[in-house]
């Protein structure tokens, strides 16, 4: 049933796993900080291949998951206006706000449109001059430049009815905040390959230099991830701590300078609230003064309900890697993918959603 190519893949995987087993002689915890890695790890069945002494935990790498309730509440409030069209990535639709969700609003007729690219918002804006199109700009450094470029394109096109509601977040400050809090035991990091394609290797150096933690920038295929874990195992075994790059075919040491320039042109850093981590200084992006006319909150008045957090929700601890989804009392009982209480369960990439969908990783068959 299985062809040669798959056989080769499996043999390679087994050898890597055996090497990791040989190199790691005590329990270690490796944190992956990218929601796409969370899903890739589950989808590939890697957990079952890794030796039991290697534990992979998920950190705050799901931008949807770390979006605080007040942002959702603002978006939902905007969606109540007759003359507003909300454009958003699909991921955001089922995220619960304090009392509703964009999906629920869409079900009762709010004009909320799913886009694959923020640029689609501009076509919609051009086609609906009497309406205000607000793009929900969520995502890390991989996506933020695409939103920034879209603002520049809106400027070039002379559009005056396009706005951005920004909730962009930056990864390195979050990593620093995690380590500063000191309550998470981690022996190494799998770093997000596509965020790194933009920011390069430099922003992660502090992990090795200040915290003496090994870190490897990893791609998203199963062998990429296994190879990255192997590289971490080698470092741990040798007592080393450096930032390495497994994803050389995409991540250049300097990242993508053009993308970063465009980011700086449109955005500026700001403090941001991360669900579960609280406020982290300079960890978010907001539209800067030169492009203020595209900032939704600065230009469009809106009445937002008082933000309430979900009682009993332990998304924060899950995001910090303190507890596993199964340790949250709401997991799988009250909080399930069809009726998520917290964003960890909503986003396909959310740790809890991935656990629920793909099982805790061990197949008992």
């Amino acid at each position: 049933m299985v062809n040669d190519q798959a056989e080769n893949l499996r043999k390679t995987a087994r050898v890597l796993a055996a090497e990791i087993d040989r190199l790691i002689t005590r329990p270690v915890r490796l944190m992956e900080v990218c929601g796409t890695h969370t899903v890739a790890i589950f989808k590939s069945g890697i957990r079952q291949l890794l030796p039991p002494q290697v534990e992979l935990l998920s950190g705050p790498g799901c931008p949807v998951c770390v979006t605080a309730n007040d942002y959702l509440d603002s978006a939902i409030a905007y969606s109540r206006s007759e003359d507003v069209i909300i454009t958003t990535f699909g991921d955001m639709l089922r995220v619960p706000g304090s009392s509703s969700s964009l999906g629920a609003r869409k079900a009762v007729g709010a004009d909320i449109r799913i886009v694959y690219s923020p640029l689609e918002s501009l076509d919609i804006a051009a086609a609906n001059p009497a309406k205000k199109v607000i793009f929900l700009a969520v995502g890390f450094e991989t996506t933020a430049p695409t939103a920034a470029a879209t603002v520049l394109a809106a400027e070039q096109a002379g559009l005056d009815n396009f706005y951005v509601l920004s909730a962009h977040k930056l990864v390195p400050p979050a990593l620093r905040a995690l380590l500063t809090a000191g309550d998470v035991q981690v022996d190494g990091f799998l770093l997000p390959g596509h965020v790194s394609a933009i920011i390069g290797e430099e922003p992660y150096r502090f992990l090795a230099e200040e915290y003496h933690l090994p870190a490897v920038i990893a791609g998203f295929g199963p062998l990429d991830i296994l190879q990255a874990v192997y590289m971490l195992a080698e470092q741990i075994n040798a007592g080393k701590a450096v930032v390495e790059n497994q994803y050389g075919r995409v991540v250049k040491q300097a990242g993508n300078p053009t993308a970063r320039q465009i980011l700086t042109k449109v955005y500026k850093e700001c403090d941001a609230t991360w669900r579960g981590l609280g406020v982290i200084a300079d960890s978010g992006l907001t539209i800067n003064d030169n492009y203020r006319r595209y900032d939704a909150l600065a230009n469009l008045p809106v009445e937002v309900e008082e933000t309430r957090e979900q009682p009993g929700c332990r998304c924060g601890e899950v995001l910090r890697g303190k507890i596993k989804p199964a340790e949250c009392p709401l997991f799988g009982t009250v909080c399930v993918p069809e009726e998520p209480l917290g964003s960890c369960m909503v986003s396909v990439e959310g740790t809890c959603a991935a656990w629920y969908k793909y099982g805790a990783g061990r197949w008992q068959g």
Partner: protein
Amino acid sequence: MKDDLILLAHGSGGKLTHDLIDKIMVPAFANDILADLGDGARIDIQGTKLAFTTDSYVVKPLFFAGGDIGKLAVCGTVNDLAMTGALPRYLSAGFIIEEGFPIADLSRIVQSMRAAAKEAGVLIVTGDTKVVEKGAADGIYINTAGVGEILPGVHISPQKVCPGQDIILSGSIGEHAIAIMADRHGLTLPQTVLSDCAPLNGLVREILAVVPSVAMLRDPTRGGVATTLSEIAAQAGVGIVVEEAAIPIRPEVSAVCNILGFDPLYLANEGKLLAFVDAGDSAKVLAIMQAHCYGKDARIIGQVTATPAGRVGLRTMIGGVRLLEMLTGDQLPRIC
């Protein structure tokens, strides 16, 4: 989110759809025949065993690469009957048409239905036409109901699924869903990607003629292969393990899934079937399928196991095993 409103996700064929049927319809209509919840109802009228089924078609766009709502309406119901182990015979066709709909389009759709019915060897013997005001019915909705004779000696049922059996998939997955969605997401597909919409009763008849003891047949439509396998595992109380490397998928479909973030195992197919057969019969069934135009890419993709009961596992490319669950809600394009 709210318990009191229907969401689009209730129609996607996954868990929410099942919950809706279990909580609202089944208790209200309560009877043994319905309780089976197979693709079609099995009816016994004074010794004559019949299969009876219905389906409504609301697909958008109405015309897509490889077919249209008309072809779908005929093939879908024909296939449901075939999956019950029946010879499809007669269909009804109900049309709900929006005011202002071009008659030329209606004609085109009806011609598609004629062609599909001809290929399937069924007659459309009765129907109904309603017109609703502009704004309702999104162009046109079609309902078809069908009746067929259950083949002698054939008893298709989840109860007949047991450990050790092979699971055969008749061909590559995801093509119908991609043909429908590509346009919506600004992707240009090559001519090679068409909806796989097709009547499978001919193929099923050939299989059952040689191996009447086939335990189970089902076409993986809404919710895809993963959802269908989950349903069967749950209904039969068995475990299922499938090999990721064995599942046929075209590179174009794979590419679209990678770009938009879809999982092909959850995408709808309209011209494929899953067959559960005793290991001793699989070579025979495979040969029959591969010799037929609608089964040339047929593969054995997995086995039925005793445990864990009700669960479906996917052995991945690198040899790990992950759980496959029923589809929850709609698959939305992701960037994350």
